[in-house]
């Protein structure tokens, strides 16, 4: 029952605007991070040494030790900010679900995908970060050994498409929400974003296969 019980004017505040800025900026930052992350990990395709050299650089410059936890915090902040819009009440969830089924509208479904992948990434991404950052230094051999264990292979086969979908849809959404992409260019941009997502998933899969093929020397 909604009864208007307002007896005074709500104080003016820009809080919604600041939070929306932050949601966009953390999102954009994480998109850039995820792209860079994928390219850096994919360096293993050019040889074990390529990846190890890059990893060593990031550890020697303390970017992994400091930057890693910073990314972790940005990740949590982005979740908290975006969660303001995600329905957690059953009633809202079922409204959204029925609405999506009724409308047959791709962008509305993409939002549902964004929200669902967000929850999976929140858990799996946190596990991944904890595992990697508590076991520095990063080396191609250690990563390969982890993936060849089996459990982590399945883990990354799930996490990879989840992240790439979320990143791709988020990229598109920021562009249309903030007016970078206008009506005229929307369809073209969406096509570009789809291809980009597929390319990153492909690079990810190739990299996983590469890790499986690396000979791990048992110590």
């Amino acid at each position, binding site marked *: 029952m909604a009864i208007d019980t307002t007896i005074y004017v709500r104080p003016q505040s*820009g809080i*919604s605007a600041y939070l929306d800025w932050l949601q966009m900026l953390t999102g954009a930052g994480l998109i850039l991070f995820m792209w860079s992350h994928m390219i850096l990990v994919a360096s293993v395709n050019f040889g074990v040494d390529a990846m190890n050299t890059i990893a060593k650089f990031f550890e020697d410059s303390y970017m992994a030790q400091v930057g890693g936890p910073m990314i972790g915090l940005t990740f949590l902040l982005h979740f908290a900010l975006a969660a303001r819009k995600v329905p957690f009440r059953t009633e809202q969830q079922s409204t959204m679900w029925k609405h999506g089924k009724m409308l047959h509208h791709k962008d509305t479904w993409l939002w549902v995908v964004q929200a669902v992948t967000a929850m999976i990434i929140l858990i799996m991404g946190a596990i991944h970060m904890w595992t990697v950052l508590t076991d520095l230094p990063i080396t191609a051999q250690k990563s390969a050994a982890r993936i060849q264990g089996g459990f982590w292979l399945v883990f990354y086969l799930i996490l990879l498409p989840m992240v790439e979908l979320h990143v791709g849809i988020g990229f598109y959404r920021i562009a249309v929400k903030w007016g970078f992409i206008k009506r005229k260019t929307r369809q073209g941009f969406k096509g570009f974003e789809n291809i980009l997502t597929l390319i990153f998933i492909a690079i990810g899969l190739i990299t996983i296969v590469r890790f499986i093929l690396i000979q791990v020397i048992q110590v």
Partner: protein
Amino acid sequence: MTRRLTFNIFRYNPQDPESVPHTDNFVLEEAERMTLYIALTKIREEQDHSLTFDFCCRAGICGACAMVINGRPGLACKTLTKDLPDEITLMPLPVFKLVGDLSVDTGTWFSAMNEKVESWVHTNKKMDPTVQEERMNNALAEEIYELERCVECGCCVAACGTANMRQDFLGAVALNRIARFIMDPRDERTEKEYFEVVGTDEGIFGCMGLLACEDVCPKQLPLQDQLGILRRQMGWTAVKQLFHIAK
């Protein structure tokens, strides 16, 4: 060969305690250039006099005949049956109060919305009937007119996931309306005053960018572009407020 169209139409009369929401099926032969409005009128005349639906202008100008057509909100008078499959499902618009069957009360919602965004030119100038009207740059007048074409049918609100989930969300129609006044040089409202109206989670920052409004608008209003412009404008106003330089 003429097609036989099957209409699955939502039926419910909230005034009648005996009435239970259900779907009725009607079969109709398709005629040339038949619109949904013509089909519905035929069904009401020939098959069921109690069928309730709204219409007025029959030409996509009044916005009264908006309904959910095979899942998509649209105007019955502007929708040709030849663009639809043999089976057509008609539902009333969500979000708005149901009057009966396909008829909803958009009026109450829209008058509240217009009050909320103060949908009129705010000026302190006194009108002098003896002098000529002030002139407006033609290009600007056309730009404003482009947004002014809204017929308040409610399709953008019904198609909006956010508006369906959150009753307090203003919806694309209100944001488009405020964008129109921001453009209008006669409106003397300051950016702070506009921010007060739409710079919240009920306004532009509640929009999640699902863009169904843009995709269903029967008048093809540039909603995506206006929402983008408004988000930036309000975003900058907020930043300016932080440094106390907002007007």
